[in-house]
């Protein structure tokens, strides 16, 4: 490994060093604030190190990791989301009657796993990254375990996630093994070559369809697409809010980026059977997610179902990734990247508002907790409304541009079925998003004091402000990000 390649791995190295240093500090003296600051500064340093990375020639670092523009973009997105979650966690965890430090260790290691996932072009690293992320998430989900009042849900959620995540990993492994048996390689790039050769003198194309479908099934579990979504609402509801936010942002971005890279280089999308399966999964996710979200009164569950629907929208664009490399100037990759960015902003904002008014002793995650928020705390209500409207895809917000991108891709590739599902799904989506908005403007006739924004909340409110600005700026003048993404996805 040359020095240049070492420098390209700088973010990974810094994020690896962060939990080590934090752990050493914990060994010396436990301090919640120090652990939080160390983790946050580690993530920030890793983010800044990207400025150094881009000065070096981007290349493959060993056959396992690929550093290119797409990787850098996803790394930045993941680090920003992880940083925000870290900072939101501090006020949330302050009154936990337990040690708080380990939560930050888990965040840092989980981030490492996500970073490995987005830079992998090889099944070994992809799998390692996925498992690192998942194992840390088990811990994060079950974190407030020793609190008696909440002990039941986190444990249930964690076990549920553990079992289903292990099953999905099993699917992926089986698929990988089948592919390896025929092609003799674990590198994404070689798979397409292997597939063509395998079809020529091997067991035929059905074999590869089955192998790819097993892998895609595993991925769909992690992206919580229908019919592999059953764990999502329970895990979202049971986990403490920072863990939910982390899972909903970093978890989804890493998985979607990995899937995008896999689909774009492996050539599995050439198979019409796989396209059909993905189309069905996408339509089911859009309709199922939106319909089930209608019935929820718990905002975490509601947002979990809405995330299922959003991943369904994303899948419309993901299916066209392959034509992005063969066709001219196709939009699929850009649409996926843009939608992920938008999704991270909106989810972080929505969960952020919930985190600001909650703490580990009392989570405000029921829709009734937000009644009259417009008149009790207009600032939070405006942010929450903006985030919800963005999730619903209303103009002036980044969510609208994201939806616009997906619609463009859908029209370009003539996927009329998924597009119709998306129109219907967005219509249904309005019901539950607007229901929350309506509850927020309905005055509350009794007093339910929100936690007063103390000095330690300044950072949280600052992040919310940044998210709001990003939401509106990217929604009104998205041109800059679009041009950036255009160059980013060309490197795929």
């Amino acid at each position, binding site marked *: 490994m040359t020095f240049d390649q070492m420098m390209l791995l700088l973010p990974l190295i810094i994020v690896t060093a962060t939990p080590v240093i934090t752990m050493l500090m914990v060994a010396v003296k436990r301090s919640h604030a120090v652990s939080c600051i160390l983790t946050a500064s580690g993530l920030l340093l890793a983010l800044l190190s990207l400025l150094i990375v881009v000065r070096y020639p981007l290349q493959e670092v060993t056959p396992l990791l690929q550093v290119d523009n797409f990787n850098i973009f996803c790394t930045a997105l993941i680090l920003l989301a992880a940083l925000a979650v870290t900072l939101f966690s501090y006020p949330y965890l302050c009154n936990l009657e337990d040690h708080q430090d380990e939560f930050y260790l888990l965040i840092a290691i989980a981030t490492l796993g996500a970073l490995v996932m987005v830079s992998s072009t090889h099944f070994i690293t992809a799998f390692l990254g996925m498992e690192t992320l998942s194992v840390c998430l088990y811990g994060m989900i079950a974190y407030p375990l020793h609190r008696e009042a909440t002990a039941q849900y986190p444990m249930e959620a964690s076990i549920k996630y553990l079992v289903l995540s292990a099953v999905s990993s099993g699917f992926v492994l089986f698929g990988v093994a089948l592919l390896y048996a025929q092609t003799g390689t674990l590198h994404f790039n070689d798979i397409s070559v292997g597939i063509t050769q395998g079809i020529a003198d091997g067991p035929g194309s059905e074999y590869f369809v089955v192998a790819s479908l097993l892998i895609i099934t595993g991925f769909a579990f992690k992206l919580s697409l229908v019919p592999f979504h059953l764990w999502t609402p329970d895990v979202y509801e049971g986990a403490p809010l920072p863990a939910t936010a982390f899972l909903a942002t970093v978890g989804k971005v890493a998985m979607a980026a990995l899937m995008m890279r896999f689909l774009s280089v492996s050539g599995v999308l050439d198979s019409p059977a796989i396209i059909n399966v993905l189309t069905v999964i996408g339509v089911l996710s859009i309709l199922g997610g939106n319909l089930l979200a209608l019935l929820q009164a718990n905002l975490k569950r509601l947002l979990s179902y809405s995330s299922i629907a959003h991943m369904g929208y994303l899948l419309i664009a993901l299916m066209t990734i392959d034509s992005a490399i063969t066709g001219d100037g196709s939009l699929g990759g*850009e649409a996926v990247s843009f939608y992920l960015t938008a999704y991270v902003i909106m989810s972080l904002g929505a969960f952020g508002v919930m985190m600001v008014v909650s703490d580990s002793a009392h989570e405000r995650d029921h829709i009734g907790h937000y009644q009259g928020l417009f*008149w009790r705390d207009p600032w939070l209500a405006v942010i929450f409304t903006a985030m919800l*409207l963005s999730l619903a895809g*209303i*103009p*002036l917000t980044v969510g*609208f541009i994201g939806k*616009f991108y997906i*619609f*463009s891709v*859908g*029209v*370009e590739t003539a996927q009329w079925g998924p*597009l119709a599902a*998306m*129109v*219907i799904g*967005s*219509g249904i989506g*309005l*019901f539950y998003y*607007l*229901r929350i*908005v*309506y509850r927020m*403007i309905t005055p509350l006739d009794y007093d339910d004091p929100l936690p007063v924004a103390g000095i330690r909340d300044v950072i949280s409110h600052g992040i919310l402000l940044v998210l709001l600005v990003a939401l509106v700026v990217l929604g009104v*003048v*998205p*041109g800059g990000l*679009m*041009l950036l993404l*255009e160059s980013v996805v060309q490197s795929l």
Partner: protein
Amino acid sequence: MIVIWLILILFVGGALAWASEALDSRLPRVTALIAMVFSLILVVMLCLDNSPDPLSPGGQWLILEKWSWIARFDIFMQVGVDGLSLLMLALTVFLGLIATGAAWHEITERPGFFYFNLLWTLAGVVGVFTALDLFLFFFFWEVMLIPMYLIIAIWGHENRAYAAMKFFVFTQVSGLILLVAILCLAYFHFVQFGRFSFDYFELQNVVLEGRFQMLVMLGFFIGFATKLPAFPLHSWLPDAHSQAPTAGSVLLAGVLLKTGAYGLIRFAVPLFPEAAADFAPVAMTIAVIGILYCAKLAFAQTDIKRLIAYTSVSHMGFVLLGVYAWNIYGLQGALMTMLAHGLTSSALFMLAGGLQHRYHTRDMGRMSGLWAKLPLMSAMALFFSIASLGMPGLGNFIGEFLSLLGAFQVNQVATIFAALGLIFASVYSLWVIQRVFHGPYHTPHGGSEPARDLQEPADLSRVELVCYGAMAIGLVWMGMYPQTFLAMAEPTMTFLLESFGEVLP
């Protein structure tokens, strides 16, 4: 730049109105009034300097400006004002001013946020009437929905949650269909010319083959017909109207419905002339069904606001009829109906709102003989009802007459049936007058004398009188000398007909 100023005044004025509530609860309405007066001045300036630029495409545009916006998709911030847009702008700011007047005494709760929403709705509408880039158009098309939703949901009446949600879902879903249609058009520009485009003038060059053109045209039609609203898609309107506060009804009936008609004239027909020609008989049938069916429904209502709402749908049928007749009479008739209906329906909704404010009911069965107590208000109600039924000498007559004249040259059967709508209109209009204002006086609370603790309702206040007076003058002007308005719109209409007329019947 003047268009950008107009939009900015409304956006910034709205934000200021909200902020000023912290100082004094009466400041927001003053701020809103100032913003509206400024925008009215700008529009009047435009009207006085009404000379089309002969160099612009079609030689009809007073203003045509273009800034780059989203380079990736060749989206431009392109705005243009021609006679048609200008008349719509004038209607918008005029009714905006009226709506401010209507809200003046009615909105006492959270006024800052109310005027914020009011002005932002208007800003969105101004954007819709001036945007010539379809992406920008869609952007504003959606921007005006959220504040309108909030107006209904916060300041509405007893069933506001349902009405607001219905309004939003109807318009939003039809809006998404419109978006898909716009994207199809932009994509076919990409296929045929090598790049995306949302430019109104460039998209006219896109050639779509028959069946596909019809589908894309239908996407546009559904988007606009829901807003208009046309017959099968109208069911959100009575709910939204009956639940909205008075100023909200004024904006909805006066301005928001007109964006649908504007969209049909500006986009749905010119972009797809062949498909529109094939579709014209269907559209005219829908229009006739809408006119008759909703007039019938209006007659069956007891809620006075729902009644006016159904008459709105009925009158909008004449607009649809005129547009799809696609000749100079039809188009000018549609335009005049839009303008006149904007004034009459706003005035009628204000009257209904005024009655509700005074008697706390919208049920006509519980009102009777109000003329004795509210002579001024009753006189105004009679005037605007008569205007609404199409009395010669007032604006609505000109509009409906021209629409029918245009439609007769194309489709006699439809026209004959549509003309029946005029008769129905006189029936239900006069029926309202008779039930509510004539007969023996009794209050909505029973007995012929008001309960002792109930204050005797006051007749029109000065603010109301000014509003009604201004609208009445407008209607008389339109009825007596429509040439002012017809002449302004004529370059646009003749251009539209010359360019896209040859393929239509």
